[in-house]
């Protein structure tokens, strides 16, 4: 019930977004959001808030993003059934689980040992067989399984790691949320053209025209 209400809320905002010309959310993404048990991905003390449309703490100074942002990020990489996706920053594993419902395989790297262990165990317990995690430095990506159709980077960085760009397929997309914990400023969508050229787009989660109407 609570999960359905959360999905409804995200759907409501997505519809609002569509009306104002923002990115609309794909039905499959919404379905995945409605299927994944978010309460399994947060610590017990946060569980009662699991289906609220807000970021939650997962310990170790890390957070699980606001569901609306998770949905938007997932949507922006335009996931396809045959996609192989790399995720940098496993966190609790929630984003990987959302992706796992939509693509062939997700490879996910986490820098914090405790989180990496917990997420691996959790994803295995919940039966996400198509997610593979490891502890390590996301900066160098995961060469072994490259190239990727899409890369999701949920860890903060001052610049986009060049190795990740190299591991992205031509035509592939990378999405990076920009901002501090509990507050996503905007999303950076990086597209690698078929000519290996890189183009980025800054996607504001919301449409906020910085000017008032002319007087």
């Amino acid at each position, binding site marked *: 019930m609570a999960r359905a209400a959360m999905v409804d809320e995200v759907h409501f905002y997505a519809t609002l*977004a569509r009306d104002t010309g923002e990115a609309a959310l794909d039905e499959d993404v919404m379905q995945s959001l409605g299927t994944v048990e978010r309460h399994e991905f947060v610590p017990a003390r946060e569980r009662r808030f699991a289906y609220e449309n807000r970021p939650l*703490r997962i310990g170790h100074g890390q957070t699980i993003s606001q569901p609306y942002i998770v949905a938007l990020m997932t949507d922006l990489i335009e996931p396809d059934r045959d996609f192989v996706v790399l995720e940098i920053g496993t966190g609790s594993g929630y984003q990987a689980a959302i992706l796992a419902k939509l693509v062939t395989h997700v490879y996910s790297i986490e820098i914090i040992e405790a989180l990496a262990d917990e997420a691996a165990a959790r994803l295995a317990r919940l039966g996400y067989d198509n997610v593979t995690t490891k502890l390590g*430095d996301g900066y160098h990506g995961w060469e072994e399984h490259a190239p990727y159709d899409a890369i999701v980077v949920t860890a903060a960085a*001052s610049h986009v790691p060049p190795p990740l760009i190299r591991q992205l397929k031509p035509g592939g997309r990378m999405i990076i949320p920009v901002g*501090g914990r509990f507050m996503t400023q905007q999303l950076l969508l990086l597209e690698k053209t078929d000519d290996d050229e890189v183009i980025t787009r800054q996607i504001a989660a919301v449409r906020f025209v910085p000017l008032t109407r002319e*007087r």
Partner: protein
Amino acid sequence: MRPLFLATLLISAAAIAYEILLMRMLSIVQWHHFAYMIISLALLGYGASGTFIAIGRRWLEPRFEVFFSLSALLFSVTMVACFVLGQRVPFNALEIVWNPRQFLYLAATYLVFFVPFFFAACCIGLAFTCRRSRISRIYFFDLLGAGLGAMMIVGVLFLLSPQDTLIMLSVVALLASASMGLTSNARKPLLAVQLVCLVALLFGLPKSWLEMRISEYKGLNQAMQVVGSNVLTVSSSPLGLLTVVESPRIPFRYAPGLSFNTGFEPPEQLAIFTDGDSMSVITRFDGNLDALGYMGDVTAALPYALLDAPHVLILGAGGGADVLLALYNGAGKIDAVELNPQITNLVTGTFAGFAGHLYDDERVTLHTQEARGFVARSKNRYDLIQVALLDSFAASGSGVQALNESYLYTVEAIQEYLRHTAAGGMLAVTRWLKLPPRDNLKLVATVLKALRETGVADPGRRLAMIRSWNTSTLLVKQGEFSLDDIAVIKEFARSHSFDTAFYPAMPAHAANRFNLLDQPYLYDGITALLGENADDFVARYKFHITPATDDKPYFFHFFKWSALPEVMALRKRGGASLIEWSYLILIATIAQAAVAGVILILLPLSRVKRSWPAGAGTRMGGYFFLLGLAFLFVEMAFIQKFILFLSHPLYAIAVVLSGFLMFAGFGSAYSGRLARRVEQTGRSPVSIAVAGISAIALLYMALLPMLFQQLMGLADGIKMALSVFLIAPLAFCMGMPFPIGLNRVADRLPDFIPWAWGINGFASVMGASLATLLAIEFGFTVVVLFALGLYAAAAVIMRHQLAQGRL
């Protein structure tokens, strides 16, 4: 010195030092702006003490020495206990937008830190109430102590860790307790308890209790989660707690504005966290510039593509990143300015080898000074003045800096930089890019105002800006950009996949090619700011981008009320970051202080049986309220004026604040004599003091900017002495109205003394926040004028009361 005076002095010194220390400690464990709010509310303890004394006066008065000693003892104990307890409240500032429970934790935090200030203020309030014949002297020692405390804490924080400083202050309060305890009839039990406390403080406190529990969401703790990360050094000063961290397994790679096209990676870096956050780095350098290839591929490298072996001035050299940038890109000579000696010590001392003895390079000269003051004093003209990207993205992005004054990015500052730029030279400023743009456009608006004021007819021909996905670099040329310059800028941007945001005669279609925005915000914004309807654009922009000036030095203030409803409505759709927090926090502080003040101070006081004629209480309440506000307004405005002159926020606080307090103390000591002399002539002494305050303040408002400009180049010591000399007469006059009023009240309405103390304490809390709000909105000049109006109103009340024979 009588024990009462000594104890008053010690308590006041410890209380103000504790306030400054707490600000430091809470800025480390939480964030600066929340620290400010917590302490503002906690200071209501001063007001509440008045209420307590008013209620219990008849019972407390015969036992004055015991209660003074006991209050001092409790102040001593709760200083430490409340810090330990306060850290146990699970308040998470970042979550406040999402989780209403955080408001409860915040309220609990207020309550905890309220307690020590309450006990400190009880001591002074009791002294005023119970020793009415000595009010002027008590007030003198109160202010003298506060002045000494403010000065000494700055020095002590250079020598001791915050925790050791806390213990030291606790011992000072214990000494005050002992000095009064010895004069009381309960000296033996008091002494026993004092000794137990002393032993416990010095030897009995488990170290873990005092450990600062830094928020797990601050950069330092995030870095420490990474496998193999390790703290190398920690050093503390009033400028900040610096923690140097290494992460050998998963290295730091800090390179803001790095091109996607780069073939280079940053070498090994050590992270420096200031107050557990805002990361900067020391980069490994072995003298081989080839290892720094990435330094050619950041937006900040643009000016070097235009200048040949320039003489560079770097403002905010920090861990040396911009010095490496300059060296890699072929700077001929570099003057590197850094405010914080601890940071330069890291690069020149502890980690000199790691940093490749960067500052020993023959091309580099290090100046450990405040940037603005350095430029003002400098006789050089530079080919390039580079303002470093000092703030971290998180701090810049979360709108937490708005309350911090910054004299680096004002109209006058830009003019100063340009005066020190050689013909054909440039000013370069790199900022984080936020969407929709705020500081990037405000900076351009500020530069344009600076140029126009100096008579530049076509400022648009002197500007160029490029942007990566997360940084923008603005160039302001001393002279107009040539076609060749523009060709270089375009090629630099193209080859790095950076976008040109502006250059003279730039076509609109060139604005948005590699890093696509839904609109070319910067191009559109800069073009609008250069156009005829610039004022209209600034007025219609949903963030505050009116240029910052030295009178309104709030570069990071972007909040506009008109945008608030829209922004709040977008919160759940990922729009939370559009909220500019610190302004709202300031408003919340004022609102909470007002409500808490009424509940904690005024309501209980209104229940106390009053022994004075109808109307007298309201008028005298108004008198002390106005004085509390006005004193804080003038003090805060002049501290700001002197920060610019003394070129250092610490010197300004140490010198100006303590100067104010001490000379106000002397004014207080003299006030009795003035009152006796003047009242014989039938005039009001308060009117004379207020006339003095007004005359001096107005004179200073007119003369200080000119005077400071002329004397800026003097040595620091002379400037400090001069500052004290200038502050002395103003503060002397400001110290008089309060004790004169209190003395009159003591003669005619003794029951009113705790009221006066409580109301004045409440007004001081409101005054500090209101002064900041007024300065943000109208500038410090208006704050002073407003204060003079308040003083005049207080003088009118007093004259009226005297004329009516009520006092």
